[in-house]
């Protein structure tokens, strides 16, 4: 009842502030009048009496202000009070506050930067109109050799048939494919990531040009520049619209510029310019490179239900491009900026790094909690007094929590600053062969994440010290002396410190595993010599160069490059090894009991094995005798030989891959696609017998890479001015990039681990110092009773050692539970590698014991007479 009344009064007061003011004025006046009368009755002169009455009443304004305060809803006014209190507290202990904020900033910054990356790569929607209305259109196909959803890409003519037939489902259906274009510039041709698209591409995406207009027809000879490329190449000059550009030997007009922030439909892949498909490719070639993917806008949600059935009907009506292919059905899948199959591994990897960053935050937070605990203990008398005065425990806890939360939120803000810096660095990441553009700038979601984890950790780690502070027995605390420090209190701190050691252990073991895995990966024998080889790709296909002329160009280029000074060998191959790219086919034996399997392959010229230093264990490599028209030949590796003809001599055997080939040589096993692979079957075919328009030049030379690349460019320009040398670089560097995830993980988690270790050691040092300080009197007594200094030191050290070993064991146990997940990234290193576990554990325990050694020495300095007399 009274509660209701109170609430009603509060409500009234909120609504009727004006009334309250009037009422206060009247009451004040009444009071002063009464007092004046009383003063007069006591014999003062009326004027004096009134002045005196005002004096006795005190500052009218102050009282009015105090009344106003009571009218504010209580929670709000208390919150304001807590905030004031906190601000004062933080200012008063600046060193502590700064350190705590810095520690939280580090942890939050690391976690948040990684979250921004995940946000940019995985969560953010495409910057187009209503991205949730966009669906990819895919086909389920049954081909000659394999079955499955391989219809993500189809010939453009098939897309044209779809576009006409599917108007009932889509508001618009677009097609696109990615292609490296050669742009003619003053210094020869320069490669640029482009996209060939249908004319309606931009209208389906619902974009607005930043300058000029978009192309609309499939065969319009105009291009759209990306905002990024426009800025970089033309410094944002609007006059670029209408100017000609030369791509792959054709001339286009710049129609317009895409809006800022739109880099294409695949996250992190920055398209430089968009070209109408039919303007660039007159007739579809069956070679997969020119096939397109389809996506469409479904504005009518109701159409979604029957869409797959209707599209499948269309799909089966359109005749497939090859006799042996049948299209079974078509279906929609929500369009995503992340290629299917990449989401899980990328998410997992970033998630792992994020977890490591969060562990640093937890370790740091444990330090801060320990400090807050120490302060709570130091303040117990004051808290007891306040409790005795009638302050509610809940109110006190809230006040203490406000402080820790504000501390952490400040750290969160610092963390956001660090994350901004880190994402600035992420934006500058460049990878060979892929024009990367990751805009990981923190957005609202990231800010909310940062403040969220900061606030949550603040509450989590502030709660224990706050509860500790108010969990007191009044009488005993008011009388408290030094002896009642309490072992329970120490235990709370020790648990924090033990957890710190455990987390640091987990981080360092993970980092250690990556380092050892990397070492192992780098020392693996790939079966060829990458050192001294420079690579660069030349693609003749988009230039409309036919096989006959293409062969002449390729041969001429290699001949010229071989004669360059410093070059010892040069060769062409369809794929560069260990760059993550591969091409594979089904092969089988021709014998009646035919064995069939899928094998990766490479099409190479006669100089390849010598250039790469690949050892042939039997037979021979390709010669100029293995020309087109001559019997088809193949070189296979030991692994493929063992699979096709186990226990028999493969030389002279015949394998079938479409046509029949004679095996003329066996190459030693190596690594082909990436260093982490299991032994992969591999086969080589002769370039003279298989023309490939896109070949990678492999040049073995002494001398600086940059000069070699320049010389190669010069020769290429002489051979064909419009063809660009795509992504030239030392092969070893390219391979190094394939180790990027491991390097990143080793570097980042290692750095996190070291920060964690430092924080944990500070924790150990702190808790041991505190213990020693608390027990000085006890040590004094022990020494007075005849204990030697070393006994006391041993006593203290025993605690520190137990703490370190306990923490290390807990950390090792956690590591055993989680490092299994890393198996696929460690080049065969066991995720329970005893050397890593042992070395990390040993180091950690040694460092932790050293950290407790310093305070333990302090116990030696105890002077029994002094310590007994103190307090």
């Amino acid at each position, binding site marked *: *009842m*009274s*509660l209701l*009344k*109170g609430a009603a*009064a*509060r409500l009234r*007061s909120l609504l009727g502030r004006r009334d309250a003011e009037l009422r*206060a004025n*009247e*009451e*004040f006046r*009444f*009071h002063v009048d*009464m007092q004046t009368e009383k003063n007069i009755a006591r014999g003062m002169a009326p004027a004096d009496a009134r002045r005196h009455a005002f004096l*006795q*009443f*005190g500052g009218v304004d*102050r*009282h009015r202000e*105090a*009344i106003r*305060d*009571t*009218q504010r809803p*209580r929670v709000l006014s208390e919150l304001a*009070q807590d905030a*004031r*209190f906190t601000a004062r*507290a933080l200012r*008063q*202990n600046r*060193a*502590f506050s700064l*350190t705590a904020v810095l520690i939280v900033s580090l942890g939050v910054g690391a976690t948040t930067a990684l979250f921004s990356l995940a946000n940019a790569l995985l969560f953010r929607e495409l910057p187009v109109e209503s991205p949730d209305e966009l669906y990819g259109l895919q086909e389920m196909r049954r081909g000659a050799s394999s079955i499955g959803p391989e219809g993500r890409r189809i010939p453009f003519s098939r897309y044209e048939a779809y576009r006409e037939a599917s108007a009932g489902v889509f508001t618009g259906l677009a097609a696109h494919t990615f292609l490296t274009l050669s742009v003619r510039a003053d210094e020869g041709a320069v490669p640029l990531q482009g996209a060939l698209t249908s004319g309606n591409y931009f209208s389906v995406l619902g974009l607005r040009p930043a300058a000029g207009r978009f192309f609309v027809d499939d065969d319009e000879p105009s291009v759209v520049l990306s905002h990024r490329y426009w800025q970089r190449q033309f410094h944002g000059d609007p006059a670029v619209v209408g100017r000609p550009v030369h791509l792959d030997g054709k001339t286009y007009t710049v129609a317009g510029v895409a809006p800022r922030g739109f880099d294409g439909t695949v996250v992190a892949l920055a398209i430089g310019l968009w070209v109408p498909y039919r303007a660039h490719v007159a007739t579809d070639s069956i070679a997969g490179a020119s096939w397109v993917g389809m996506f469409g806008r479904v504005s009518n949600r109701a159409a979604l239900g029957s869409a797959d059935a209707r599209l499948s009907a269309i799909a089966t009506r359109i005749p497939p491009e090859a006799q042996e292919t049948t299209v079974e059905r078509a279906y929609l899948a929500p369009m995503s900026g992340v290629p299917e199959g990449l989401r899980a591994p990328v998410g997992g990897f970033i998630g792992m790094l994020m977890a490591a960053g969060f562990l640093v935050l937890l370790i740091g937070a444990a*330090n801060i909690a*320990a*400090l807050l605990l*120490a*302060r*709570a203990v*130091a*303040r117990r008398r*004051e808290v*007891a007094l*306040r409790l*005795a*005065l*009638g*302050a509610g425990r809940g109110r006190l806890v809230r006040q203490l929590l406000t402080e820790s939360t504000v501390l952490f939120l400040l750290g969160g803000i610092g963390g956001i600053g660090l994350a901004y810096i880190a994402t600035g660095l992420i934006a500058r990441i460049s990878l060979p062969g892929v024009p990367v553009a990751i805009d990981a700038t923190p957005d609202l979601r990231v800010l909310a994440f940062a403040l969220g984890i900061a606030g949550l950790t603040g509450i989590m780690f502030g709660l224990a010290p706050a509860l500790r502070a108010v969990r007191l027995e*009044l*009488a005993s605390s*008011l*009388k408290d002396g030094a002896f009642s420090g309490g072992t329970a209190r120490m235990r709370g701190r020790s648990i924090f410190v033990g957890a710190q050691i455990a987390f640091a252990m987990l981080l360092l073991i993970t980092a250690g595993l990556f380092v050892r895995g990397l070492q192992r990966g780098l020392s693996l024998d790939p079966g060829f010599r990458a050192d001294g080889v420079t690579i660069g790709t030349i693609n003749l296909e988009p230039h409309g160069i036919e096989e006959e002329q293409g062969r002449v160009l390729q041969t001429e280029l290699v001949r010229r490059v071989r004669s360059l000074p410093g070059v010892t060998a040069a060769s062409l191959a369809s794929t560069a090894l260990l760059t993550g790219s591969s091409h594979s086919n089904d092969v089988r034996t021709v014998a009646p009991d035919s064995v069939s399997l899928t094998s990766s392959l490479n099409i190479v010229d006669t100089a390849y094995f010598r250039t790469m230093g690949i050892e042939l264990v039997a037979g021979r490599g390709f010669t100029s005798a293995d020309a087109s028209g001559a019997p088809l030949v193949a070189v296979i590796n030991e692994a493929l030989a063992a699979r096709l003809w186990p226990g028999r001599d493969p030389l002279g055997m015949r394998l079938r891959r479409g046509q029949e080939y004679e095996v003329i040589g066996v190459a030693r096993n190596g690594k082909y696609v990436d260093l982490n692979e299991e032994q992969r079957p591999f086969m080589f075919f002769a370039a003279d017998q298989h023309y490939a328009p896109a070949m990678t030049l492999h040049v073995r030379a002494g001398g600086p890479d940059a000069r070699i690349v320049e010389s190669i460019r010069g020769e290429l320009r002489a051979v064909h001015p419009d063809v660009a040398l795509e992504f030239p670089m030392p092969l070893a560097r390219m391979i190094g990039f394939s180790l990027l995830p491991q390097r990143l993980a080793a570097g980042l988690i290692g750095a996190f681990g070291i920060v964690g270790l430092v924080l944990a050691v*500070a*924790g150990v*040092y*702190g808790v041991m*110092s*505190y213990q020693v300080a608390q027990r000085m009197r006890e040590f004094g007594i022990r020494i007075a009773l005849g204990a030697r200094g070393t006994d006391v030191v041993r006593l203290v050290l025993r605690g520190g050692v137990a703490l370190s070993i306990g923490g290390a064991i807990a950390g090792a146990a956690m590591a055993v539970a989680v490092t299994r997940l890393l198996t696929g990234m460690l080049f065969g290193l066991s995720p329970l590698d005893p050397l890593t576990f042992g070395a990390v554990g040993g180091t950690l325990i040694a460092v932790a014991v050293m950290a407790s050694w310093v305070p333990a020495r302090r116990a030696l300095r105890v002077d029994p007479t002094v310590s007994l007399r103190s307090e």
Partner: protein
Amino acid sequence: MYFLLESRRDPHPWPKMPPNTQADALRGTIDLLVLKTLMTGPQHGWGIGERIQQISSGVLDVNQGSLYPALQRLEHKGVIESEWGVSANNRRARYYRLTPAGHRALGAETESWRRFAAAVETVLSSA
């Protein structure tokens, strides 16, 4: 890490309480005295102040005006209520009186005050 705490000039690393801690103590006292005064019947602000001064024989000669925020606060808590009335000298005055909750609160406050006084006594006698 703990050197951060140890090196402070102030032996108590925790900040001093804000000034209104003292006010807190006083506030508790005033609340108690107001409730006690109103036990005898409704009274206006000036009358309450006079009565407190009388009972305490002038020891608690507080700033008279600070009574009003206290009254307001107690009214918000629902332990007292107020209405306009006519004073002995025939003027309009705001009269305060205890609610049933106020009667109960008086008991509890008295108890807590005695506990506090005892605690302070213990501190003073042990230090």
